[in-house]
């Protein structure tokens, strides 16, 4: 508990899919001054009406424990899991990256996309929209490389993550 290093944690939260639940979670973070680096949410169990929220946050161990305890205290929260601590996990993010370029730069953007296994999902004579999936730093690297080639727009989903192995949340 004396560890004061600030680390990044990915937290998965299973909640009732009801009005206001996201506001509760976000309000808790802003009200208590916690970080949100990314947040994703969607319904994952239509029958039980459960949604899964994935939050990437950072803080000292004491803060991270507080965040988890505060989240668990919210009435519509079913489960909170720290994917960074609770064993191995996979996390992915998707980005749509628009590059407007012609000539050599256009060709170069395609070449890099190929290396990153990004797909062109839209193309015009002067632009591409690439779809790329991967870990956050892979997306960061791809976007950085696209910058000098005519990057005009980026849309990212934020991280979704899941524990490896057979167990459920």
């Amino acid at each position, binding site marked *: *508990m*004396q560890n004061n290093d600030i680390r990044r944690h990915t937290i998965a939260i299973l*909640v*009732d899919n009801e*009005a*206001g639940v996201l*506001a*509760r979670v976000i*309000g808790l973070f802003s*009200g208590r001054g916690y970080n949100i680096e990314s947040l994703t949410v969607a319904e994952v169990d239509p029958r039980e009406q459960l949604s899964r929220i994935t939050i990437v946050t950072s803080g000292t161990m*004491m803060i991270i*424990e*507080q965040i988890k*305890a*505060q989240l*668990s*205290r*919210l*009435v*519509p*929260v*079913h489960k909170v899991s720290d994917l960074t601590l609770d064993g191995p996990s996979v996390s992915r993010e998707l980005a749509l990256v628009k590059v407007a370029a012609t000539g050599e730069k256009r060709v170069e953007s395609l070449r890099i996309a190929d290396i990153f296994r990004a797909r062109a999902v839209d193309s015009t004579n002067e632009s591409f929209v690439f779809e790329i999936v991967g870990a956050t730093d892979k997306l960061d690297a791809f976007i950085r490389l696209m910058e000098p080639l005519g990057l005009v727009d980026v849309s990212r989903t934020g991280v979704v993550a899941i524990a490896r192995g057979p167990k459920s949340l």
Partner: protein
Amino acid sequence: MTQETMNGAEIVLKALQDQGVEVIFGYPGGAVLPLYDEIFKQNRLRHILVRHEQAALHAAEGYARSTGKVGVVLVTSGPGATNAVTGLLDAMCDSVPIVCLTGQVPTHLIGNDAFQEADTTGITRPCTKHNYLVKDVESLSRVVHEAFYVARTGRPGPVVIDLPKDVLVTRAPYVGSADAAHKSYRPRVKGDASAIEAALTLIAGAKRPIFYTGGGVINSGVKACKLLTQFVHTTGYPCTQTLMGLGGFPGSDPQSLGMVGMHGTYESNMAMHGCDVMICIGARFDDRVTGRLNAFAPHAKKIHIDIDPSSINKNVAVDIAVVGDVGNVLEDMIAGWKARSLRPDAAALKSWWTQIERWRARDCLRFAATDKIIKPQYAIKRLYELTKGRDTYITTEVGQHQMWAAQFFKFEEPFRWMTSGGLGTMGYGLPSAMGVQLAHPDALVIDIAGEASIQMNIQEMSTIAQYRLPVKIFILNNQYMGMVRQWQELLHGGRYSESYCAALPDFVKLAEAYGAVGLKADKPSELDDVINEMIAVDRPVIVDCRVDQAENCFPMIPSGAAHNEMLLGPEDEAEKPISEDGMVLV
């Protein structure tokens, strides 16, 4: 087969009755008229008409804290709901179980800036344990029952149910209270056995132990308080209480060190500073208790027992955490202590008590009484002595008088002391006293007040008159916002910016205007007679007790200081200037 249906308002009333509600504190308005119509048609639920919605919340808090039941409030939409916000947060900070029904514009108008529309669930989300907007009458009975369950279980708190007007007039079948486990909300009651084992080993091995006990003991109930007393007696260890914990352990027990924290006793704070094992039970290491964090109990191993996991390791990292209901955990601890035939270290304990007695001998609450002017401490001391042995309940406002009340009153039982601790809400005491008096019609209920605070909800004198509540209001009138003046003296060079209470009303006449009795004490020689008369009169009384304007509340740990850097009295002020860091704290 058609099921029998009721309209939403009937469903609410039926659910309240099924929850055992006897009293509602409220104030009507357009959005809640269907509910008021149902209230009119029945006589099982008693409605108390307050004069401001904030007071409805505080009254419900007083009712709840003096009975252990859930306090219930009904207010209208818009301004009714926003006026309730302070009281909701007050209940949140002090973990008081409240269900607050708020009116709302009809569902089809929500979001249209309709007349008296407010985003009540949005506004109250951070000031409630949970809140609901009921958009569909089918879910109404379930929501009301669930709200009571959430309010009263786990760490108690306020719950808001926002009720659009159309839902109140639409019909649906009523569903009775179901005890089925909630899908996601399941507070942990029983403590982890191995954590309890480890805690017991640490407790038994302590050389300089202290019990640090808070409002969680009282919230856990009378039985928990008895178990605490039993365990403290079994160990022979000293026990200090937080402002919220007063009465959880008998105040005049020789093992009680009195209150801990900013205005706590010297012996409590020194023992907290010097202990080697701290057993925190139902308290939350609040900044008013810990003082400067990096100097807090530097040599102590800390055990924390609390029902709220988010209270653990929040401000102070502890060595052993037991999450569970205090009463439940104490029961297991006492059993474990016996089963393992644990025994305290008698020699170490003896020298620890010798040290504590030396601190006690400083007599930190002493004050210089005179026969010319009433010292506020003297007034509280006499009030305590003259009411001792009676069926007395004390509420307070916020300020110096509150701290003096906490220091000089000794509470032998839980549920007798109602004060706004976490939020420090001026204006809490009078409405709270109303709630207490309603729950205990024959008891002596006293609001210990300041002349500034009492004016924040003085309109409730009218409620008191209407329901003939014999509440006593004992004003320590120092003509200053004394606590503000004290900080200005200690921290801001004696520049008393806006802390003088000019144009005070004549409190005796004010009492009479509201049909109450007004009494005044100017000199120490008059005090006892005035207090005795106040007690004897079977009507509401306001006592204007004129006290020394310059008196400061000591002991005091200035903000940003450590427990062992306490100011004991005026003579200390010059010697120990307050640090720059402390200046920015509240």
